[in-house]
């Protein structure tokens, strides 16, 4: 097995004449928190969708845990936990039922109670999905991504809609999950989050990787005080 957990080489994906991802390459090592940064429409979500086998790339090579996400889709779903931006649940499904349902999908699931407590959803087991606040839905979605004890967690817009307290709790949880050896792929356009959590990041713009490195390197190379300033300079240049 190679040293990288995720390898993406020259990924290209178009919808009709619209090129969503032009040429994206990056690698993620085991136990890393890797951030994919980019403005809206930069190609982040399409990249991730190819990576988890929801879409088939037009060109390029992807390996996740040494496997092809398209061909070995079922095998990988057991080891990759996913939190989607718009993946929802039935309105009347209760929190406890959702956890029990998703537990039944995996051979060795995590403890639902513990996970809900860590995500601040303790005592919400009987609440239907439709009655949850935006932030609670988001946290339930994270819980479902982690319930199967994945080797890799792919989290799209992790803390969108969370208040500052919930956001920090979630960051702490992600750090803890990583400390257990889980590799984390974080998709975000929220720079303080990337700065705080990510070991390395790739900035995607117009379907290509502009730069990749540690948040500190990127900030220093652009001669800016924060990652957000560096990001704005980088992605504004070619806009």
């Amino acid at each position, binding site marked *: 097995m190679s040293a990288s957990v995720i390898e993406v080489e020259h990924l290209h994906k178009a919808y009709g004449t619209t090129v969503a991802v032009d040429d994206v390459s990056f690698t993620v090592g085991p136990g890393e928190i890797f951030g994919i940064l980019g403005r809206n429409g930069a190609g982040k979500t399409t990249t991730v969708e190819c990576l988890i086998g929801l879409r088939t790339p037009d060109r390029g090579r992807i390996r996740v845990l040494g496997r092809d996400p398209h061909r070995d889709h079922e095998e990988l779903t057991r080891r990759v936990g996913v939190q989607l931006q718009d993946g*929802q649940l039935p309105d*009347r*499904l209760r929190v406890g039922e959702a956890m029990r349902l*998703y537990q*039944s999908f995996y051979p060795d699931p995590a403890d639902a109670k513990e996970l809900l407590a860590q995500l601040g959803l303790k005592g919400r087991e009987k609440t239907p999905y439709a009655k949850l606040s935006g932030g609670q839905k988001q946290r339930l979605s994270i819980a479902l991504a982690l319930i*199967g004890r994945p080797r890799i967690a792919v989290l799209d817009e992790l803390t969108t809609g969370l208040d500052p307290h919930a956001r920090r709790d979630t960051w702490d949880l992600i750090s803890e999950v990583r400390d257990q050896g889980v590799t984390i792929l974080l998709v975000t356009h929220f720079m303080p989050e990337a700065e705080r959590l990510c070991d390395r990041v790739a900035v995607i713009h117009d379907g290509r990787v502009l730069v990749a490195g540690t948040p500190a390197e990127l900030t220093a190379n652009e001669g800016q005080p924060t990652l957000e300033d560096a990001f704005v300079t980088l992605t504004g240049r070619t806009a």
Partner: protein
Amino acid sequence: MTTLTLIELRLFLREKAGPAFGVGLPLILLIIFGNLPFYRERRDDLGGLTLLDVYVPILIAFVLAMLALNVLPAVLAGYREKGVLRRLRTTPVGPARVLAAQLIITLLTAAVSVTTVLLTARLAYGVAFPRQPAGFVLTTVLAAVALTAVGLLVAAAAPGGRAANAIGSAVFYPMVFLGGLFLPIQTMPAVLRHVSQATPMGAAVTAMQDTTSGHWPHWLALITMVLWAGGAALAAAKLFRWE
């Protein structure tokens, strides 16, 4: 799969629309018809049967059409619209099992409802059980499969839950009309009767009425249902998208 089916069943019961329209409404119609003396008179133009005798098969086909066209498509198209199926594609279970669970629930509810209608009609109003039971079971199963296939086609073609409801109703009402809910097929003008025979509902009712009076269902009616089942299922499979 068991947990998935049980949770889907619980949601189905919690939603209330399925049990109310698929089980409650046909039973209420049966009780209303059964208490009208007009429906219980033997009639020469129906070959000595009562109107209620003729209506029981119609109500059974009504149950199947209700579940297949008004309940199932809205659930499936709603799940797709909300991203429920998309989310499941990222799990080892996959969305096909949800489809399977929904089909199990639809057929289970249909079985419960059909049995309830037959038993109530027999015990409360003296309507005899079908005199050709094997033919009746075969017809009911074929009708359920054909109508469910049409329902899946509606779910595949509709962009979302609301649209599925609208399309489902637009197919349902002409279908139950042609099945004889408002005007028994025997009393329809010839042209309408021929049109009716070509629909899965009309074929189902005709075949069931054959078995009520002790005959094996006419092969043309059985073939009609098989063709609808195959055609609609193929079209649905071609059109269906998980997201």
